[in-house]
């Protein structure tokens, strides 16, 4: 199926000002999308209220409007420019909301503008809680159990079905006033009563709690011919209860067997089909009961999302660019994989490294804000690190935050045990460092799991780092073995951190340690040759070769 020739002018909506939850990632996707459409010969008309973006640079779109992102302004632009189509899925929630409003007010119809990528029905189905729940029920996927009740008696009838703990959300209260969690029957009666009283319509939503469950995300793409592929799986280090944008996340998922991964793959494709996103990318979030393995669908974004930007950078697969091309009629098998050139985009990336994303907070600038991490996003940015081991990837991310931290040590010796535990129990920006400190003090993986519900595989990885840190601390540059130093680098210890542990200088560590290896991000785990140079650094064991003369040559492999 070649590209559409019945449309010529395409309107693209940017995401507006940089705010928490909607930052530069949408500039990245919008720019990619605009370039892709122009490359195909379409005339791109861009609207964004934020001139401090790449996408508003003059060479990106054919016409750029820097105007407020509100319906009346959009209508004027549509009236003047008469675009054939509107692509609403690359500008985050702002663009999606505007597109919905333009449709509902009949403006798109009036000027004969077609929505491409996702249509109105699909967006509504994904965004409206009831419609979404209905759609998920239809395809047999579970969501947290919930029901609206109007009395204690009604609440009593369904509590056995929902089970404890249960979340109580009074309807129509400002900022969720009166919301609470009940862990047993006594609390339940008291809190439902309080909730009913707090609600002006005397109504509460009772919802099954999935706090502490494991959390996963899948990035899925679909084309006009209904080909669907998964770009990337992401596992959240922080369990359910912390907003994905505020969670430390890892790609690919680390603790799913193939049977479980394929369940999520099937579910994600079923969701994008049922919601009806015809072309482009979507992000589907799941939670998993760590004891029974049961999966719930949490939500789906029928657009390029914050996680899509991460998945693009993590795999090398340009989601926004491909989404734009799919929107104008191409199918995945017609598009080349830019990195390998010879293979098509209709494949699923395989990566041979681990990606860690850690959000960056700035509570100092918002002294009034509660620094507890909850379901409301508070981070102002994020870092992404690539390593060949989970440990390396995680430690690289920690020191990339520009917090003046070079590993898992930030000097928490003086804090009392209670505070350490409290800081692990309550999600906060410093939790990884408190976990490390708890391991230094001899707490077990089980102890920390009980406080945090962070999967034990992740906790064990941190514990191994701390155990090794203790071993390193007993050494000096004179007594440490080459083997130990090599292991430290493979595990992501920075030279600066090693200098501290071995009581020497960074330069002396650098002189002594193994050299760095550069590896390529290529979407295919080296199965095919890569033509796009996109490198990361890591540390590798010695390898070598016997040359023509029978001589042994050894080296640490690096790509160039």
């Amino acid at each position, binding site marked *: 199926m070649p590209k559409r020739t019945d449309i010529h002018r395409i309107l693209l909506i940017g995401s507006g000002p940089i705010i928490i939850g909607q930052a530069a990632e949408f500039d990245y996707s919008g720019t990619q999308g605009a370039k892709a459409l122009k490359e195909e010969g379409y005339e791109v008309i861009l609207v964004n209220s934020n001139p401090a973006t790449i996408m508003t640079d003059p060479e990106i779109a054919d016409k750029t409007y820097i105007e407020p992102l509100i319906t009346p302004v959009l209508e004027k632009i549509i009236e003047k420019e008469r675009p054939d189509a509107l692509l609403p899925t690359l500008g985050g929630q702002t663009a999606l909301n505007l597109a919905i409003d333009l449709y509902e007010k009949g403006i798109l119809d009036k000027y004969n503008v077609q929505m491409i990528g996702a249509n109105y029905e699909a967006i509504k189905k994904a965004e409206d809680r009831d419609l979404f729940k209905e759609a998920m029920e239809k395809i047999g996927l579970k969501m947290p159990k919930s029901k609206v009740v109007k009395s204690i008696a009604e609440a009593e009838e369904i509590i056995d079905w929902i089970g404890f703990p249960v979340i109580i959300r009074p309807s129509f209260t400002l900022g969720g006033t009166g919301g609470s969690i009940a862990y047993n029957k006594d609390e339940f009666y008291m809190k439902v009563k309080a909730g009913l009283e707090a609600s002006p319509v005397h109504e509460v939503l009772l919802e099954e709690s999935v706090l502490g469950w494991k959390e996963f995300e899948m990035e899925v793409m679909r084309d006009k011919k209904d080909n669907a592929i998964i770009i990337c799986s992401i596992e959240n280090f922080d369990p359910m209860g912390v907003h994905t944008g505020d969670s430390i996340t890892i790609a690919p998922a680390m603790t799913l067997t193939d049977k479980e991964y394929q*369940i999520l793959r099937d579910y994600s494709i079923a969701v994008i089909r049922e919601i009806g996103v015809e072309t482009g990318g979507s992000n589907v979030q799941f939670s998993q009961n760590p004891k029974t393995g049961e999966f719930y669908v949490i939500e789906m974004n029928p657009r390029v999302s914050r996680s899509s930007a991460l998945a693009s950078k993590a795999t090398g697969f340009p989601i926004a660019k491909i989404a734009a091309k799919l929107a104008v009629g191409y199918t995945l098998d017609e598009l080349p994989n830019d990195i390998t050139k010879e293979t098509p985009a209709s494949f699923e990336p395989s990566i*041979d*490294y681990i990606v860690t994303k850690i959000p960056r907070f700035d509570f100092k600038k918002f002294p009034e804000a509660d620094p507890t991490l909850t379901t409301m996003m508070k981070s102002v940015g994020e870092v992404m690190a690539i390593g060949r081991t989970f440990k390396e990837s995680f430690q690289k991310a920690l020191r990339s935050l520009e917090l003046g931290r070079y590993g898992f040590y930030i000097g928490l010796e003086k804090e009392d045990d209670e505070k350490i535990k409290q800081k692990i129990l309550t999600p906060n920006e410093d939790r990884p460092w408190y976990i490390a400190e708890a391991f230094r003090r001899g707490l077990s993986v089980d102890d920390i799991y009980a406080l945090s519900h962070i999967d034990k595989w992740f906790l064990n990885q941190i514990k191994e780092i701390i155990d090794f840190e203790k071993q390193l601390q007993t050494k000096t540059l004179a007594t440490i073995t080459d083997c130990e130093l090599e292991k430290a680098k493979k595990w992501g210890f920075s030279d600066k951190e090693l200098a501290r542990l071995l009581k020497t200088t960074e330069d002396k560590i650098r002189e002594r340690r193994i050299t760095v290896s550069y590896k390529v991000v290529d979407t295919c785990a080296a199965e095919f040759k890569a033509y796009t140079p996109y490198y990361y650094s890591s540390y590798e064991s010695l390898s070598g070769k016997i040359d023509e003369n029978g001589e042994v040559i050894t080296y640490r492999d690096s790509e160039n």
Partner: protein
Amino acid sequence: MQRAILALEDGHFFYGYAFSGLNQKEVGGEVIFNTSMTGYQEIITDPSYKGQIVVFTEPQIGNYGVNLEDEESDKVHANAIVVKDISKTFSNWRAEKSLIEYLNENNVIGITDIDTRALVRILRDYGVMKGYITTEDISPQEAVKRARNIPDISELNLVAEVSKREPYKWEYGSWDPEKGYKKQTEKKYKVAVIDYGVKRNILRLMADRGCDLTCFPHDIQAEEIIKFNPDGIFLSNGPGDPAILKYQIDQIKKLLKTDIPIFGICLGHQLLTWAVGGRTYKLEFGHHGGNHPVKNLKTSKVEITAQNHNYATDVDTLPSNVEITHINLNDHTPEGMRLTDRPVFSIQYHPESSPGPHDSLYIFDEFVNLIEECKK
């Protein structure tokens, strides 16, 4: 952990540490790489990997441990595994033991801390080759010499090693997260499976669809299969080079003279290629992974498939009654074929997944539909 060396016949070598099978001291095999990011347990227990040293491109292996439900046969068949970083601890609600323990029980060497990406690039550029792993303290020259001396995979009758000696019945269907494996409830079609090293999930998917499965050893005579009077015949996957299995190919030739529907997967597809008069050839570095795009030429839809093969059908050698039904979009090699004048078809990749995507499960429906049509 013990220091280990992996040497390739072309003179490359890699240092790492052995974490399992330490009593073995050494192992040889054909070195191949697999790009699946999940499913290490299914991969190493797949009998098709007999004779091979499997390099995982996914760097973090062992994370979710091992459970007895996810085995594709009753033991580990891969000769050895090579990883970047083995996980000592594991976490999953179904995990029963660590991968290290499991490999130890199976006496299989695993090595870690290998620069797997550098290794994969060599295999990609120069093709699959023989390799040798040892924990002995020997020179790289000696290790390379030993790698060159191990027998070539095309000289080994690996099928005879992995196929069961006696016929057996299979009665379990697919895995369900809540109920595990269910015993099959319906037996509508009598199917003879020729077991060249069959994966359990193939049997499960056929059991789900009402096939009454009897598995026969790889060297069963065609006459015995015909006497058994099945509604359908399945030629399974298995290890090694199809070209050396002359006896098995001759039996398939005889089966092709009957009107019984025949379906083959992987090695079964390759043997069928020879039986209809075609030839197979060795791919440079094979297809091993869970992300290969395959186009179904009838529907023109793309399936993401699980693959594990080093040999491919040479399309130019096929007679005119063979139609190619599926092609690989990465290198355009054939991935499926059917006979236009007989109820016979085969698939080169692994529609049964495990590990891998479920996009191609419809292939099993097609087999059952074919049986149903022929019964009429």
